[in-house]
């Protein structure tokens, strides 16, 4: 076993995960507290690298979906996921051996830790996106052939629904509809996988990476202008591509509206001085495309990340405000998304933009 996650690891992990969320994932304050408390109560959570997973393992993705406003009142029970796991195992007819996160960014990076602590299961050091995206068919697991079902989900009162759907899109549609019926928040276990499937499909090492990047963001001095080399050092040799500073400037305009359950809009940045053209970023929960003047400089699935210029704190899309001084840094997407199969799901064209994926330009 390589290592364990302790309560004091969670703060940096959440900070780093918020960064990799590329604008998405939402506020993680409550889940940070819940995870710290769960680990203090039930003990540290073992973290297992994909290559260490035993061959007879059964790995399951666990995550929550729900309305952020409902989430202000409707918080999880203390033994979150314990009963769901018992019922899900009965449905599968097998014992689950490991849990894995569906995405990096926001609450879902730590939900597996909360559930794993209460269920006394280890968690895989990796996840199904290596960033945040709004829908479950955008995860690397289904892209590379892992069926989302059999799956089971529960509200926070113990009601359970089981799924066997034809494909990932159908699963996404059904869970989304269920959220509203089941009180606004639900916890799901899905994408049951073998060790080989995890090694083939998951973005590896991302929890450890989030923690080290989180520590760097917390400790880094000298502003975001000098952040890129520190990030590159962490990302070197991982599934991610190059780190490319894109822009430093001031938020000059934010427009945002809710559309079909998504936060949709645009952010415009202006350079502090000089004649550099403005940077425009389109968002749909996450930052998806960036234009410098009229030129596309970054597109999904590459990560468009934003930090406050002085403090290096990651900025999620709902926290952007006029006048903020920010740095925008591009990170090459995990290689899983850059194949034909990956781009078929998460390219800009598939996310509603009239343009094709364009890799980050490296200086």
């Amino acid at each position, binding site marked *: 076993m390589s290592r364990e996650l302790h309560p004091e690891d969670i703060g940096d992990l959440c900070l780093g995960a918020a960064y990799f969320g590329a604008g998405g994932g939402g506020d993680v304050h409550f889940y940070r*507290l819940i995870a710290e408390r769960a680990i203090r109560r039930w003990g540290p959570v073992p973290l297992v690298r994909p290559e260490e997973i035993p061959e007879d393992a059964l790995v399951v993705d666990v995550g929550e979906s729900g309305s952020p*406003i*409902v989430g202000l009142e*409707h*918080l999880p029970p203390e033994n979150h996921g314990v009963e769901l796991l018992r019922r899900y195992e009965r449905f599968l007819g097998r014992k689950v051996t490991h849990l894995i996160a569906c995405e990096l960014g926001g609450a879902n990076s730590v939900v597996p830790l*909360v559930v794993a602590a209460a269920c006394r299961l280890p968690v895989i050091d990796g996840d199904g996106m290596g960033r945040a995206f709004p829908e479950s068919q955008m995860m690397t697991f289904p892209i590379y052939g892992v069926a989302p079902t059999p799956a089971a989900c529960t509200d926070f009162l113990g009601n359970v629904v089981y799924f066997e759907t034809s494909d990932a899109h159908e699963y996404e549609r059904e869970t989304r509809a269920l959220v*509203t019926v089941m009180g*606004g928040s639900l916890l799901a276990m899905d994408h049951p996988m073998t060790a080989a499937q995890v090694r083939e499909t998951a973005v590896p090492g991302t929890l450890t990476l989030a923690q080290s990047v989180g520590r760097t963001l917390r400790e880094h001095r000298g502003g975001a202008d000098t952040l890129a080399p520190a990030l590159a050092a962490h990302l070197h040799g991982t599934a991610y591509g190059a780190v490319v500073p894109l822009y430093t400037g001031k938020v000059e305009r934010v427009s945002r509206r809710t559309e079909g359950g998504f936060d949709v809009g645009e952010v415009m940045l202006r350079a502090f001085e000089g004649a550099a053209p403005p940077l425009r970023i389109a968002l749909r929960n996450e930052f998806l495309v960036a234009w410098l003047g009229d030129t596309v400089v970054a597109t999904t699935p590459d990560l468009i990340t934003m930090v406050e210029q002085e403090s290096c704190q990651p900025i999620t899309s709902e926290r952007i405000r006029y*006048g903020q001084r920010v740095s925008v840094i591009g990170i090459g997407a995990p290689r899983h998304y850059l194949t034909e199969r990956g781009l078929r799901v998460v390219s800009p064209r598939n996310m509603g933009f009239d343009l094709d994926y364009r890799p980050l330009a490296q200086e």
Partner: protein
Amino acid sequence: MRLGIDVGGTNTDVVALDHGRVTLCRKVPTSADIEGGVRQALQTVFHRDRVSAADVDAVIIGTTQFLNAIVQRRGLARVGIIRAGAPTGTSLPPMTDWPEDLVQAIGGKAEMIRGGHRYDGRELGPLDRAELDRAIDRLAAAGIRNIVVSAVHSPVNPVHEEEMAAQVRRRLPECAVSPSHELGGLGLLERENAALLNAALADIAPRVLASFGTVLTELGVHCPYFLCANDGTTLNLQSVARHPVLTFASGPTNSMRGAAFLSGVSNAIVIDIGGTTTDVGVLRNGFPRLSNTVVEVGGVRVGFRMPDVLSIALGGGSLVQNAGHAIGPLSVGYRLIEEALVFGGSVLTATDVAVAAGAAGVGDRSRVAHLDASLIDSALSRIGVMLDSAIDRMRTSEQSVPLVLVGGGSILVRRPFASVGEVITPPNADVANAVGAAVAQVAGEAEQVFVSRILTEEGDAALEELTARASRAAARRGAAAATLRVVDVEHIHLSYTAPPMTRVRVKVVGDIDLAAGPLADSANRPRSTAT
């Protein structure tokens, strides 16, 4: 006439407002016991300025005493909380993210029982009455006399909180009970936090009110008096006794309300420069813009909205170092009149630079005659950059807005600003805080979650009902009913709800009802909340 009093960290200011004009203002040092300074300020007005106590219609006091009690963990009552909502929320019990010393200071005991509601107002489960009785027994056995009751989604449906409160009152008639929905909207933990801090002030609130009452009575003032609230409005004594937390942010709010009144401008950026810090805020329709993010008080996130104020470490006492390239964050603070060069001290402060530049006529200018011109220039430029950057961060658009300068430190400003239009330094700018207190009105709020379709079809009726509720709340706080007007209507759509739901919040504001009766009238006395 009305008297507005601001109890600041250094000075207690008093202004008289007569027929909409500031007729006099006085400053005295703040006393350790607060009411001593207030007494002295009023005595000055009555004796030196020959104002007759009988001519005073209302006294409005802005004080941060309750905030300071929380921040300094001083004189806090022991508090317990019973939350209905289990099994949901048991992962995050009340006070989970509080500083440990504050939990200790209030001896915080938390109980979680079944009950609470969903976002659409349906029960999560029935309220567990047997568990409720056992929880009450345990808190009583621990000697707790102040109990907060909270329930999941109580702002949508308060019936469980109301039933819990009634049961606590029945079982423990000597206890004070605070239902959380009286102190916040959606956001369970923040709402509980506000209610817990509020309950912790249960012992101090009546003491503070009684001591102000005694001072006024001694000086022959028999008109009603009020305290200032977070949003630039006033609270009558019953409201303060019940909800002392609502006074927490009155300081910055009053300076902005005072700036609006003195300048006659209702949409502006306001800069209040003090001895150690500068507060930058935004006036919108005469009221401070409120923060959209969660605010912290004494290390605790609270649910109510506070003015959106950016504080930077720049003031008249800020240390000037590095040949004028570094200003602050250290400051000589209230020791300015001993330590600054122009006052015969040995520390180079921002005030010295302003005096040397001829921008201010305080102290002895000859003591800064030796300062290098380039140092003065660098320091003033640096101050300009700090203020410009702060102003810029508070703006919401490129549009040029006027800037109102208040506070004693406004001498530091070398105009013009790169980032704003007109700069206004109104008369009496150094007592804007007390003016803000004097002009305060009374507000009431109501909020409810509706099925969005109902708002489309019968939105007017729904709004009318909410406005009526907000107006009743304002009347309870001492507003004259005929003067009430709606100042804010807010719609927030809740995602993932079926049928789609919308939360609507209405705020009304009106004038103080001066016919409410004299101070001696028992109706205007604080209710005793503790024995």
